[in-house]
């Protein structure tokens, strides 16, 4: 149904906007794995998005790597960083992870800013190659030709749509798997889960890695679409924005996270005349949602119980 959207609305700006929101949807679904399913907080999610974007940018500029090869590489590199960052914090306690990731987000942004020789410093990297696909052509005879995506948002829209579908499918399958059930068990009661023989640290770390991988993919798509990456596209506000999307839509619900991304993605367009108050409204919204509807718009019953359960004393 969404695939028909470009046919109904031919406004290029709207299509571009929808593609941007689609990237938010990917990010929100990815962050949801950590925040919603594992019950851990990642406040530096933009850093993994940035790593994905810079990895593809560097590969494209120096090695002329095609997008389709850069895409998995971006994801894997982001995942690798996820493991390195997640390990020390997850081992200790959940809320330290929040701070470590926050610090990591800062380090990555500062590093991209300062390592001018490789990253172009504050000016960023430009001239990143757009994706190319083999498309069927007819020039007297039937053949295939390598066609670049070009400047129109249309192919990116479909690319993002396909990615969302693949990631959503993958996440639904994952959550129904042994791994997904282990993750939910840990979130519900870590002690009981570890007593049942679930390797708590490994499972949490895996969730963190999957989440970082998805952010890396989103970063690669973003870099290919914009053809330019700068460090200030990946600030703390972006991390908080994605978190707000997950929280608003419903932690632990795959469609919830996507819905949150759509709502908050389009909100700035709707609130255009209140642009200055936008971030203020986000802050208030986060507080109100946490107090009155901690499970978000589409939060499941399971997470609802978890979020309203009395905190255990003595912690």
């Amino acid at each position, binding site marked *: 149904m969404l695939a028909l959207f470009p046919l109904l609305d031919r406004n290029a700006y709207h299509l571009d906007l929808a593609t941007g929101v689609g990237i938010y949807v990917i990010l929100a679904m990815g962050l949801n794995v950590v925040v919603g399913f594992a019950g851990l*907080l990642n406040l530096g999610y933009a850093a993994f998005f940035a790593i994905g974007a810079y990895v593809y940018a560097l590969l494209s500029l120096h090695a002329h790597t095609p997008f389709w090869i850069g895409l998995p590489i971006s994801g894997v590199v982001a995942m690798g960083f996820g493991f390195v960052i997640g390990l020390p914090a997850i081992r200790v306690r959940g809320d330290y992870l929040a701070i470590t990731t926050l610090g*990591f987000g800062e380090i990555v942004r500062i590093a991209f800013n300062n390592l001018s020789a490789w990253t172009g410093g504050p000016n960023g990297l430009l001239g990143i190659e757009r994706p190319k696909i083999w498309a069927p052509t007819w020039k007297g005879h039937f053949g295939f030709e390598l066609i670049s995506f070009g400047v129109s948002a249309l192919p990116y829209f479909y690319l993002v749509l396909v990615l969302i579908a693949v990631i959503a499918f993958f996440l639904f399958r994952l959550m129904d798997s042994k791994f997904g059930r282990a993750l939910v068990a840990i979130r519900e009661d870590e002690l009981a889960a570890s007593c049942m023989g679930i390797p708590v640290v490994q499972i949490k770390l895996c969730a963190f890695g999957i989440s970082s991988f998805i952010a890396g993919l989103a970063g690669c798509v973003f870099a290919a679409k914009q053809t330019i990456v700068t460090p200030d596209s990946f600030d703390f506000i972006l991390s908080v924005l994605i978190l707000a999307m997950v929280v608003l839509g419903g932690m632990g619900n795959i469609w919830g996270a996507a819905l949150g991304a759509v709502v908050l993605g389009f909100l700035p367009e709707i609130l255009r005349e209140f642009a200055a108050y936008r971030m203020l409204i986000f802050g208030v919204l*986060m507080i109100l949602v*946490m107090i009155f509807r901690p499970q978000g718009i589409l939060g499941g019953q399971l997470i609802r119980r978890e979020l309203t359960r*009395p905190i255990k004393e003595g912690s």
Partner: protein
Amino acid sequence: MSAALNLFLNQLLNGLTIGMVYALIALGYTMVYGVIGLINFAHGEVFMVGAYLALTAIWLAASFFPGIPFGLTLLFLILFSMAGASILGALIEKIAYRPLRRSPKLTALITSIGVSFFLQNAVMLIYGSKEQSIPDIVPMTRLKIGAISVSLIQILIFSVSIGLMFFLTWFVKNTKTGKAMRAVSENPEAAQLVGISPNRIIAATFILGSALAAVGGSLFALNYGSINFHDGYLAGLKAFTAAVFGGIGSIPGAMVGGILLGVFEGLGAGYISSEWKDVFAFLLLGAVLLFKPSGIMGNNVSEKV
């Protein structure tokens, strides 16, 4: 004296100065964590609001009592900033955190990010998004002690911070409220059984922590001569690092952690690179979590469910 030693001493001094400010903020993090187990992300913003309140106090003093001695302005700005931040701290606790007293950590943590965002943007809307410069109310005299020169503001920072740290130690150890705070952080239920009202004590902790952060903010603003609405975020983050470094929940830990972090940063900026200054704190945090998660003075804090 040799130039190398000179550089070392000056960087040490700069580090100690900022370290005092980190320590003042870190105390608020560690006290709130000790009492309700919450990482209060909004605490850095309280520090920033404290700095803006100090600026407001300078404006007020300049327009209502022009020409009063700088000592009085200083006293007024610190008291004004402490009072304003205390009210803010109490309000934050009552409006945002109290309804979530029985919710799990993640809920309160996300709420505190919401509060932090709200405060940052409220300050931006009120004072503007540009950097505000702080009028020089403290004379620029520098004292020469051997090869190092100390500014009057630095002496002020040292004396006020150390004074407040002694006061806090005394307060927590000897007063009724202080003892109740320790009781609540030890065991909230048992504290309630002996007639301590946890809500009152938690509110008192927020007020005390906010007042200390406000003093830190005022001193920071005076020392650097300017303040911006997003200064609280980074300072808060580093102060939290300091609290973890010292051992979260431990008051002397926060003091030592703050000062050491400041020194570490000052020396790092002087000897390695000032561009990477902000990275050192986070590398330190990573190292602490990896090798000694309980911090230098903390109790053993393995994950409890």
